[in-house]
């Protein structure tokens, strides 16, 4: 069974291709990352240079970079994982003052020439990394293989790669006697969440649902602040907030996908307004926080009624734009789509209504493909370890075929990655994960089904113990006799 021991993803190479209509000159850059000793990831960017076509010239001949980006989009060969960079002359007025790199909504960018070839090359290198992957994003997806303490806290924020995710929006109303809270979640989901999920449907299946939980209270009693006459939740108490709520969220019983929870908490009348404090004691402007790999919570304060005699319950209509803005930002954070710190001359176009730019999707795909391959290798390695530990375990034919399939798919994924075929590599890696998990979690491999050897010995103690008694006694006798024999010659002297 030693066949199944797959080591780390050693010597894996990634190509980010830059295609063109005519390809007169090609050249490639190779990078090697090694997040751990056993795992190393090699990447190669293949660059193709060419002149612009007349159509592209025309498209670039507009007033702003945004219009140019929109006009260039239909002209590009928009295959996953490829980027098109247009180098515009220094004198061009397309880019605003002080900006030399503009990243569009799709898979293209504009770079202002100037400062010589060396400066252009640095810009290009930064740009390709921003739009595909960086050493830190690779390290983040391989975080399971990196020993603790080597990574910052942010890298563990990302959700694990999975075939599907469930997104649950929950409205927590701990005080239905005073607040009758109404949220138009259906419309908000269709309007704000669905576009981004449609785009992400390439990565995984998503299901969205919502619920309203009454009398669901946070696990922490907020502190009253006399100065602002408001209630405060300090940053160090936030980890305890979720536990009592979680018991009522009702995890997905019908599926095995990870759940992303977004909670909107309308504080009780006796505890409002409620604000979240950061580590320095200043109130958080969004009044929201997120929990890595779990979801986000937002506190939504209800304005006190103008007249104190207003009849209860107070009718509250939640402003879904404000809420969804924060939940979408948290969703992007959880998927590791946060925009990294960039040099000031970089300008990123906002993804607009779709909530996600094409190149960000590519980033996600690169990361998830790599993570899937790493997961497959880990799963198969632990399966091999299990087999080594329990010698008499039975591998059925269907389990064996799943393992073969997982290995074959993983190899396909690696090969496709090295050719730069992002989409097929991702599909193959997904298939590999499914097969390897199915093999690993097969009920016939439950190790409790197999008798450990020490129990067999325990059963035969009635045999071994009485048999050992005469042997031990005669051993003791031999020792005694040899000692006496040693003593006797000295006596003789």
């Amino acid at each position, binding site marked *: 069974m030693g066949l199944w021991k797959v080591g780390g993803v050693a010597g894996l190479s990634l190509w980010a291709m830059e295609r063109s209509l005519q390809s007169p000159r090609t050249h490639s850059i190779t990078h090697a990352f090694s997040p751990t000793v056993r795992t190393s990831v090699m990447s190669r960017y293949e660059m193709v240079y060419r002149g612009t076509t007349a159509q592209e010239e025309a498209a670039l001949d507009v007033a702003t970079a945004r219009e140019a980006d929109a006009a260039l989009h239909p002209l590009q060969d928009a295959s996953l994982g490829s980027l098109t960079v247009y180098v515009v002359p220094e004198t061009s007025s397309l880019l605003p003052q002080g900006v030399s790199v503009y990243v569009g909504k799709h898979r293209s960018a504009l770079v202002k020439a100037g400062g010589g070839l060396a400066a252009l090359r640095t810009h290009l290198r930064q740009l390709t990394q921003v739009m595909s992957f960086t050493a830190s994003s690779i390290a983040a997806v391989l975080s399971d293989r990196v020993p603790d303490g080597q990574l910052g806290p942010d890298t563990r924020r990302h959700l694990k790669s999975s075939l599907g995710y469930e997104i*649950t929006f929950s409205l927590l109303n701990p005080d*239905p*006697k005073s607040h*009758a*809270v*109404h949220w*138009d*979640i*259906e*419309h908000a*989901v269709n309007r704000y969440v669905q576009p981004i999920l449609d785009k992400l449907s390439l990565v995984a299946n998503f*299901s*969205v*649902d*919502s*619920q*309203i939980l*009454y*009398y669901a209270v946070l696990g922490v009693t907020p502190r009253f602040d006399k100065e602002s006459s408001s209630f405060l939740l300090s940053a160090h108490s936030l980890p305890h907030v979720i536990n009592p709520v979680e*018991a*009522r969220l*009702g995890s*997905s*019983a*019908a*599926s095995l996908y990870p759940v992303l929870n977004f909670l909107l908490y309308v504080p009780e009348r006796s505890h409002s307004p409620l604000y979240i404090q950061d580590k320095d004691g200043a109130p958080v402007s969004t009044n929201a926080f997120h929990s890595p790999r779990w979801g986000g919570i937002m506190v939504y304060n209800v304005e006190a009624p103008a007249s104190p005699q207003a*009849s209860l*319950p107070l*009718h509250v209509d939640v402003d879904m734009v404000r809420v969804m803005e924060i939940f979408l930002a948290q969703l992007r954070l959880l998927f590791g789509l946060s925009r990294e710190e960039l040099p000031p001359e970089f300008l990123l176009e906002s993804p607009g209504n779709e909530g996600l730019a094409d190149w960000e999707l590519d980033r996600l795909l690169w990361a998830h493909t790599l993570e899937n391959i790493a997961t497959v290798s880990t799963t198969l390695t632990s399966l091999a370890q299990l087999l080594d530990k329990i010698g008499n375990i039975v591998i059925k034919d269907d389990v064996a075929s799943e393992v073969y399939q997982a290995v074959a798919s993983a190899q396909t994924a690696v090969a496709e990655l090295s050719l730069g075929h992002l989409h097929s590599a991702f599909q193959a890696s997904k298939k590999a994960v499914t097969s390897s998990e199915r093999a690993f979690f097969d009920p016939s491999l439950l190790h409790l089904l197999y008798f450990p050897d020490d129990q067999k010995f325990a*059963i*035969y103690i*009635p*045999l071994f*113990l*009485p*048999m050992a*008694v*005469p*042997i031990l006694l*005669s051993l003791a006798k031999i020792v005694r006799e040899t000692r006496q024999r040693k003593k006797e010659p000295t006596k003789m002297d």
Partner: protein
Amino acid sequence: MLAAAALLVLLAAGPGRADTGRDALREELLLSPLPAGDVAATFQFRTRWDADLQRGAVSHYRLFPKALGRLVAALGVRELHLALTQGFWRTRTWGQPPLQAPAGAELWVWFQPTVTDVDKAWKELSNILSGIFCASLNFIDSTNTVTPTASFRPLGLANGTDHHLLRYAVLPREVVCTENLTPWKKLLPCGSKAGLAVLLKAERLFHSSYHSQAVHIRPVCRDASCLAVSWELRQTLTVVFDTFSSGQGKKDWSLFKMFSRTLTDACPLASESKVYVDISPKNKEKELLEVTPPPTSVLEAVVQGDKRTYAVYDLLSPSLFNTSRSLNVQLKWKRPQESSELPVPILHAHRYVSGYGLQTGEISTLIYNTHPYRAFPVVLLETVPWYLRLYVHTLTIITKGKENKPSYIHYQPAQDRRRPHLLEMLIQLPANSVTKITIQFERALLKWTEYPPDPNHGFYVSSSVLSALVPSVIAMKDMDVEQSPLFTSLFPSSDGSSYFVRLYTEPLLVNLPTPDFSMPYNVICLTCTVVAVCYGSFYNLLTRTFHVEEPSRAGLAKRLANVIRKFRGVPPL
């Protein structure tokens, strides 16, 4: 005042109206003194949602619990009935139950016709439910699942009743306790924080003679024209308190005495919140009992063929909490009731196992029809595990000394380790009669790994199910079913002259021949000891050297002889 209350209700139920569908919650509590002196408390929480769960488009939940809604949508469930029960409802002394459940766990489900692999969906469903309710429902497998043909009809909307879509299973060994109650309470919109559910305190509920909690999900008509479907979730909980023994021989009771809590408010999300107290006069005497505080209204209804009078407390009416902040319903008997004859329910049954030895036995079921002049048919469902091999040729049905031929028999023989026996019969019960049904069985030997822990406790045989349309003694009015209290709306009544009753008999406990499980180890010990002793002596024989040794000191006999000689005054040897 009333208008203000109505406004309050409207405001509470206001949100949610605009989107997918309206949903409404009704909570009811029925307190009924039982003939034998106990008190039965039945809670019912009804959530109705005007949305079609099946289409899959609905994913925004308000009052309906998301966990159950997703389950219904994902697995193609048309109707789901789950009951977890501790104890046994004694129909003979307690009267006809509002809704009985067999001891242990009972689950029966109708699937949608679109479900292709019903067995797979059933397996998945029972596993998920076992997770939701922390019950051992995952032990439901093909050996205890049956597909009855006549006993269980869909209770909700259904077109076509192809019984292949039905699955029924009972786990009589299941013990129901707090861990099952907590997830059940979690499904309520108000949890146990407000409304009637504050009374559901586990330490009181399980200190009772009978505890049964259930979940019923079914599709119902949205309105009278029945063009659209609504989904209804009923969460019911029945508990019987023995007030007679705990109250020093007095049959008086109060909410506080039973639940150690009182009611302070209605659930703010409920559109109806009522407490009913059964104050029906018995034996045509004048009212002997007195309820305090005075009820909001008095309702007369015909329930299960009997005229009942209910004192109604409407928790949403503001006048109720005007005088005191909490409602503690109390019932006092004006003078001690003389122990009169207990009223006998029209249909009741009794079942026992007889025979001696560990090879064969006999299951006997007695069904009583005490109606003075009407005969009626009853459907009997027996599920017997495969390890009791039924001898079908010994099946006898005797009424009034004569053989009674069932008009319908459905028998599915068991297959070892695959499926249980299923016996369904439609038996005509003549007026004022006792029908005895007996069948003999043989006990099978199990493989040694198939025995459960503590096999000498015995093996349970689940309750048999009796379903009947019992003729009513008094004429029933055709009333608005939706408005009537509690359970009358769960079972459809065909006409005014009869009502539907489903009864469960006692579960049986049967001893199977049980091997001595320590025997293999004993054999190992014995043989090992024999081998070890042989080995030891052989080893000694081989390794010891024998040589003759002169006795250097006096032996034990000689010393003893010397002691005796000393006493006698004779010189020692």
